[in-house]
């Protein structure tokens, strides 16, 4: 199979879907000739023209609202939100409008739109360009949330998102845009709500999202050298969540760690840990542990920033503790 970058995967997904369905268009800042600052969309405007790849002013609430209205009236817009940190600006349109319209209208109206944005720190971009804010939108009924962990998932999940009849938010990790993965030549979609077992194992379950899947896989390698067989699972979509696969794994391994790059406090690791604990409680030999971003604004200074995110080393330490049945954080 050929290898392509995550950035190319996103580009391909959009191009394929736009060829298939003329009601799809894309809008955002610097998306046309510039192809976004990350150059993810390069070439699309050449194929589809400025009528379908639309440069907007710097007006995140405005163009997101426009996407909502377009989605209600026969179009299938894709919004490019340049940084995940700008979710702050579009919460009203996504939460009070997009998420609720189908329900509030008793099923008469719906909002088939995709909001593509990103997440992830350690890019030395400081506190307003490094956040992973997916927990917020996961909390909102009516929204779906996808977290691709490689080029392969990025393409398949995005195509599914574009065909979904609901508002979907998809978070790409900024630092993974150049990461390559094997991606089929032929068309494929990845259904929502199906977790993927990246690596099977019997001793402990590592549940990881987005780039944390790489962290978990590296940790699993190290643990394997100590004779510990970790199972690595990627939920792929947080809403809907494939609880079944997670719980089946934990019932087998009796131990789990959830790893995510959002802040730890009131973040998504808590929900995943709670779901598992609720349904696999009597199988657990130790409390489900959580590894997440430190609860501080992301600092610019590199040595400080590097402390704030989960790493394979930190995960290995946590896994060893879990295997000894120790409580996290020295409690």
């Amino acid at each position: 199979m050929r290898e392509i970058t995550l950035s190319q995967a996103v580009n391909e997904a959009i191009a394929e879907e736009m060829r298939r369905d003329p009601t799809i268009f894309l809008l955002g800042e610097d998306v046309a000739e510039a192809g976004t600052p990350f150059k993810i969309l390069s070439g699309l405007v050449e194929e589809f023209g400025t009528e379908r790849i639309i440069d907007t002013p710097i007006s995140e609430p405005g163009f997101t609202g426009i996407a909502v209205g377009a989605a209600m009236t026969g179009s299938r817009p894709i919004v490019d939100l340049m940084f995940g940190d700008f979710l702050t600006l579009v919460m009203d349109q996504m939460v009070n409008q997009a998420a609720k319209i189908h329900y509030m209208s008793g099923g008469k109206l719906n909002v088939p739109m995709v909001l593509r944005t990103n997440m992830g720190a350690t890019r030395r971009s400081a506190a307003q360009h490094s956040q992973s804010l997916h927990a917020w939108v996961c909390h909102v009924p009516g929204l779906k949330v996808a977290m691709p962990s490689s080029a392969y998932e990025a393409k398949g999940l995005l195509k599914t998102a574009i065909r979904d009849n609901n508002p979907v938010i998809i978070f790409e990790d900024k630092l993974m845009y150049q990461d390559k993965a094997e991606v089929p030549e032929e068309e494929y979609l990845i259904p929502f709500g199906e977790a993927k077992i990246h690596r099977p194992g019997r001793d402990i379950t590592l549940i990881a999202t987005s780039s944390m899947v790489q962290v978990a896989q590296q940790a699993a390698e190290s643990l394997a050298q100590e004779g510990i067989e970790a199972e690595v699972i990627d939920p792929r979509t947080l809403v809907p969540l494939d609880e079944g696969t997670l719980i089946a794994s934990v019932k087998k391994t009796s131990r789990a760690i959830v790893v995510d790059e959002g802040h730890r406090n009131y973040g998504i690791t808590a929900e995943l840990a709670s779901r598992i604990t609720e349904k696999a409680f009597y199988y657990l030999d130790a409390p489900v542990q959580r590894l997440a971003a430190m609860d501080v604004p992301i600092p610019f200074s590199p040595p400080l920033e590097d402390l704030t995110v989960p790493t394979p080393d930190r995960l290995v330490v946590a896994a060893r503790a879990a295997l000894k049945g120790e409580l996290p954080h020295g409690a």
Partner: protein
Amino acid sequence: MTIPNISNSETYLRMYRQMVRIRNFEDNANKLYLTAKMPGLTHMYSGQEAVAVGLCEALEKTDHITSTHRGHGHCVAKGADFQQMFCELLGKEEGYCRGKGGSMHIADQENGNLGANAIVGGSAGIATGAALSAKRLATGAVTVCFFGDGALGQGLLYEVMNMAALWSLPIIYACENNLYGEYTHVSEMAAGQLKTRASAFGIDSFEVDGQDVLAVNDLAQDLVVRARRGEGPFFVVLNTYRYHGHHVGDINRAYYRSKEEEDEWKTNRDPIKNFAHWLIDKKIIDQQDLTEIQKDIAAEAEAAVIYALAARYPSEREVGDHVYKI
């Protein structure tokens, strides 16, 4: 007022009827509230009928509108029927939104009403998106975005007007200046001249007497044609007045507006009364027939209320439906 065009008699009478229908709807809604038969609160449109009717009569069924928390008038004017509306206000299964939306979210997709909105200014993006959709898909549809003077405080409006202007979208921003946002006068909320809020974006902007249904309709006809030709967007300030409180529970209003002011508008500037005088004056209809129209509408409203009161609530199973479209 405009010189009557006899071939337009039908249109005039339809406009009259629609204004009376709105007034009747509101009187009944208010009664439902006062007799504790309606859940929650609701915002009366009475006094502003000429705005909704004047604009919506210039639209086709396939054209879109977005509406506000004060949305019953827009909904009726765009063609909704009483029964489904009252059912919605009472949270009944047969309501436009199966009772899930209520007064503040009433929508009527079949007639092009994309919905009321309880976020002030919140529908400005939706309306502009509908206009973009229409332009891209070449449906020929025009969108009217209704909002109040208070919504001029919301930044979203300026963002989307800028894009509508850049992209020449077929949309009319209709600012209903009823002088108040809740309990605060427009002069305390909006600096400068309202009209220039849009002309700053190079948008052709107008001001019209929102109590004069013919003036509103004349302007609307013109702008709708121009918008369909790709000459949009447009912005219109419609000067009007709400007769009731901000919502049905807002009874003591003396601290923010005077009884005299209210009386002046109700007595001398009522859009229905004045239009009735004009219709009779111009011999388009006589008093007796007018009274007949009023009676018919009152009966229609009453029947709808009775129907809605007796209608079923949605079944409990429905609480989990429509979170996602399959």
